């Protein structure tokens, strides 16, 4: 058993003058305060990576800077899936009794700490240095390739994908700290400039500065809490050239493993937190997991199914597409929002009671998948 005892999230966007360590520290302080835990009580520290602070020991660099001396501490790297992978590690660590609590933290000045070209170039290096990168791909190009095949097979239209961008922007509209809050329409998404066909500017998440953290504990934090019931992963490839399929990925397998570990089914979930680096990422993951029929995610979004008042509220903070994407912290924001919604403390964004939630993240080019089932226990 493990509990998400506290979460901390900074605003995402352009936050000039703040370093990776500043943003990590800010998020960590917020999460510890939320969990009512003192620095000296922290036993485990997990962190991800930062493209603006590459280091072979980022977790201990952070621990020293922040002022903690954990008994368990290291970094984790699974691209965009890192945040949820750390939740899985933290869950296993407290459940097995290695530590009583784990502070999971991420932060990066990905927007203001480098030029946009540097950000685009460093991220494109998830491609193969010899067989892919020389062709001048970008992350949107890898996903553009996937999108072309997936849309071809399942009859998805660009307008369907645009619905997901519209939805995430609507959710960010009144979320404190969101980077992009001005409403957009399907027509505006369709008219936005081409990036990597069929993906256009508004199909892509922004690059952000930001930090996000959470605390996982062995002890129930109060009368009421959100616990991690079970987790699962699947890793099918690294490079898009080597993906076994561009229409079926490891997401369903990861969810099946999380389901087995937790004894919970997708149908138990009343809230979904799903990785949305691009509109196509979100569509594929929703459809692969079974939260939408193949080719049907856009239509469900248009019908309000994934809205705050819908049957399956999704990324109610605005997701990567509109709250923003600062790297590892991006998915942690999804987890933070899920915990906040489940605890009933989302204020004006609050959806109706969420007894259980399904979280899913991917890293690389739909390469690595991590799923979690959360449950509110009273």
């Amino acid at each position, binding site marked *: 058993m493990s509990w998400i005892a506290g979460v901390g999230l900074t605003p995402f966007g352009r936050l000039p003058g703040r370093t990776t360590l500043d943003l990590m520290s800010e998020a960590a302080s917020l999460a510890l305060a939320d969990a009512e835990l003192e620095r000296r009580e922290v036993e485990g520290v997990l962190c991800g990576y930062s493209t603006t602070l590459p280091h072979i020991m980022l977790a201990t660099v952070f621990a020293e800077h922040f002022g903690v001396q954990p008994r368990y501490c290291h970094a984790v790297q699974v691209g965009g899936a890192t945040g949820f992978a750390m939740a899985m590690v933290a869950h296993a660590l407290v459940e097995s009794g290695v530590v009583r609590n784990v502070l999971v933290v991420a932060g990066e000045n990905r927007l203001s700490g480098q030029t946009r070209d540097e950000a*685009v170039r460093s991220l494109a290096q998830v491609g193969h240095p010899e*067989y892919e990168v*020389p062709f*001048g791909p970008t992350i949107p190009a890898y996903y553009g*390739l*996937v999108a072309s*095949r997936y849309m071809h097979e399942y009859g998805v239209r660009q307008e369907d994908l645009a619905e997901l961008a519209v939805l995430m922007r609507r959710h960010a509209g009144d979320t404190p700290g969101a980077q992009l809050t001005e409403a957009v329409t399907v027509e505006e998404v369709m008219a936005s400039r081409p990036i990597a066909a069929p993906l256009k500017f508004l199909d892509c998440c922004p690059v952000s500065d930001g930090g996000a953290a959470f605390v996982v504990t062995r002890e129930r934090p109060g009368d009421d809490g959100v616990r991690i019931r079970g987790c699962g992963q699947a890793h099918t490839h690294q490079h*898009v*050239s080597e993906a076994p399929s*561009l229409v079926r990925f490891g997401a369903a397998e990861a969810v099946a493993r999380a389901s087995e570990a937790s004894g919970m089914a997708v149908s138990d979930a009343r809230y979904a937190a799903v990785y949305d680096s691009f509109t196509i990422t979100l569509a594929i993951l929703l459809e692969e997991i079974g939260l939408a029929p193949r080719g049907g995610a856009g239509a469900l979004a248009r019908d309000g199914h994934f809205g705050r008042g819908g049957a399956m509220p999704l990324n109610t903070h605005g997701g990567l597409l509109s709250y923003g994407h600062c790297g590892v912290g991006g998915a942690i924001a999804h987890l933070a929002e899920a915990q906040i919604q489940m605890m009933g403390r989302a204020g004006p964004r609050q959806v109706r009671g969420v007894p259980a939630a399904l979280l899913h993240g991917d890293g690389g080019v739909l390469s690595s998948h991590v799923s979690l089932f959360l449950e509110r226990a009273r």
Partner: protein
Amino acid sequence: MTAIAFQRCGGCGATWYFARGFCPRCGSAEPERREATGRGTVHAVTVVSRAPTEALRRHAPYTLLLVDMAEGFRLMAHGEPGLAIRDAVRAEFHEFDGATLPRFRRAE
């Protein structure tokens, strides 16, 4: 003449593109190096409008493909504009940012 190279395992018959010193399916050492005919089918296609570097910006927009080769492996390559999924294509080579890279045209 430049050709697209791939590898084949004499033990289990697997074919693959990213060169290595063993078969990734069965682990056999010393896979054979072979040259592809250059014939294939477009599996996926995108057009890169936003290039990753200043040097590549003058090439944009450029067409990027995943091609299923006749020999049974898949690779990333450039393509002529206007190619679509399922188009039959054949490989040529061109200079791109200082490298000689495969670029596919519609097969006759």
